[in-house]
C-alpha cells in the first residue's frame, strides 16, 4: 500500500461549468500530481477545525500554498497588503500540531512554510517590497520568478536539491525570524527560502513552488519519509 499524503485545501467561491461563486473545496491539481508521481497516494483535506481525526489515515502531511496567514499567530496587526483566511489557519494549525505530536512527516509549501514558522514561534514580513525594496519574489500576477538559492551544506534541502538550485517563487510575504526552525536556504537577497527541523524525521518548509514542476526530489523525499513511517 502506498503512503497516503494529505494535502490541505482552500474553500473559495469558485466559478466553473455554469456555477457562479459556488463555495468549493479546491487546491491546484499540481500538488496531487506531484505526490502521485513521487509514488504516494494524495487525498485532499477540506478545512475542518473540529479535531485532527483525519490524521489516523495519513502517513504524511502537505501544507499547500494560498493566502496570507493571520498575523495574530505571530503577534502582529495585519498590514494593508495582508489578505487572510482565518478558518483555514485554524484548521491547518490544528492538523500541524497533531502531526508534530506524532512526528508525522510534514512538507510546507509557500504559505505552508510560513505556517510552519509561525507554529514554531517565528515571525513574517507582511509585505516584502516594504522590506526588501524590490518585487523579485512576486514579479506579476500568476508569474513565477526564477532565481538561484544558496543552501546550507549538510542540510536536508541541500542534499535533496543537489547541483540544480534554481527555484520558482510567487509570494509577497517572507520569513523574518524562523523561530525554533533552522534556515537552511536563502535567496540572493538573503531572504529565507527553506526551513527545517533537523531533529525531526522530516519537517521541511520551502518558500517556492516545487509542485509546479512536480519536483520529485522534494515530493519523493516526503513520500519516502512517509513510507518509512507507515
Amino acid at each position: 500500500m502506498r503512503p497516503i499524503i494529505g494535502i490541505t485545501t482552500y474553500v473559495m467561491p469558485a466559478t466553473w461549468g455554469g456555477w457562479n461563486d459556488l463555495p468549493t473545496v479546491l487546491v491546484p491539481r499540481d500538488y496531487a500530481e506531484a505526490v502521485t508521481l513521487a509514488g504516494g497516494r494524495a487525498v485532499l483535506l477540506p478545512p475542518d477545525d473540529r479535531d485532527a481525526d483525519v490524521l489516523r489515515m495519513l502517513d504524511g502531511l502537505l501544507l499547500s500554498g494560498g493566502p496570507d496567514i493571520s498575523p495574530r499567530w505571530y503577534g502582529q496587526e495585519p498590514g494593508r497588503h495582508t489578505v487572510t483566511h482565518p478558518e483555514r489557519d485554524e484548521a491547518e494549525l490544528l492538523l500541524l500540531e497533531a502531526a508534530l505530536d506524532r512526528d508525522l512527516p510534514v512538507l510546507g509549501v509557500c504559505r505552508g512554510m510560513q505556517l510552519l514558522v509561525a507554529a514554531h514561534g517565528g515571525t513574517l514580513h507582511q509585505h516584502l517590497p516594504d522590506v526588501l525594496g524590490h518585487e523579485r519574489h512576486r514579479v506579476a500576477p500568476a508569474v513565477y520568478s526564477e532565481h538561484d538559492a544558496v543552501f546550507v551544506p549538510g542540510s536536508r534541502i541541500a542534499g535533496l536539491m543537489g547541483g540544480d538550485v534554481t527555484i520558482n517563487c510567487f509570494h509577497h510575504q517572507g520569513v523574518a525570524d524562523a523561530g525554533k526552525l533552522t534556515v537552511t536556504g536563502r535567496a540572493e537577497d538573503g531572504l529565507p527560502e527553506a526551513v527545517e527541523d533537523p531533529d525531526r524525521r522530516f519537517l521541511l518548509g520551502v518558500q517556492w513552488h516545487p509542485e509546479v514542476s512536480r519536483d520529485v526530489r522534494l515530493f519523493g523525499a516526503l513520500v519516502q519519509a512517509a513510507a518509512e513511517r507507515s
Partner: protein
Amino acid sequence: MRRPLIGLTAYAQHVHFGRNDVMAGMLPMTYVRAVHVTGGRAVLITPDDPGTDVLETLDGIVFTGGGDVGPGHWGAEPHPETEVDEVRDAAEIMLMRAALEQDLPVLGVCRGHQVMAVATGGSLHQHLPDLIGHDRHRAAVGTDPLAAGAGDYGRHDVVTADHSLAHDLFGRHTTVNSFHHQAVADPGRCVATGWCPDDRVVEIIEHPGRTFALGVQWHPERTSDLRVFAALVAAAMNRRKVAAAA
C-alpha cells in the same frame, strides 16, 4: 467515538476564483458540509490516480455528482448530448468495484448513482428527453428547485419499493431536486427501489448483497434533508465498531 472517515470522489476542473484561474482538484463544499453535519470527517479522493489502496483507510465513500458516464462502459455509442471525462470514469468505476468488493459503505449521488449501476454491469439512458419526451429532470444549473416559490421544473416525487432500504429511509415517498439528463436503464447487480411516479425514471438503487450501498439520482447535499448522508455515516460508524471489536 471518533468520527468515521468518509471519502468523497473529487474531480479535476478548471476553476476561476478571485484573480486565479487554475486546474484544481475540487468539489462543491455542499458535499463536505453534508458529511460533517451528519458526524463524519470528509476527505477528498482525487481521480488522477490508478490505485484503490486508499479504500483501506476509509470507513465509507460517496461517489459524487458530475458529468456523464462514458457509454463505452456498457458497450454503447455516445449520444450527441453525452459529455465524458474518461479519467474520472476509469478511476471511479475501479473504486466503486473495489469498495463494493470490500463491503465498504457506499453512497452514490447523481452521477455516482449511475456509476454504481454501470460498475456492476448495468447501463444508462443517455438522454432522457429521447425516452420520456421532456427535460423536466434537468433543472437549470445554479437553481434550487426546492426553494419556496420555485416552479416545479426539476422537482418531483419519488416513490419507494416496500421492504427496501429506500423505504426505511424515506417511507413511501419523498420529494427531490433533479439535475440530470441521463438515468439508469439497467441497474446491473443493484436493484431499483425508487422511481419518479410520473415517468418511471429510476431514482434509487441498492445493492442487495451489501451492508450499505445506495444510489440516489438527485442531490440531497444541496438540501436540508441529509437522511442518506446520516445513514451512510451510521453504517460507516458500525463498520468501525465491528473492525475495532475484531
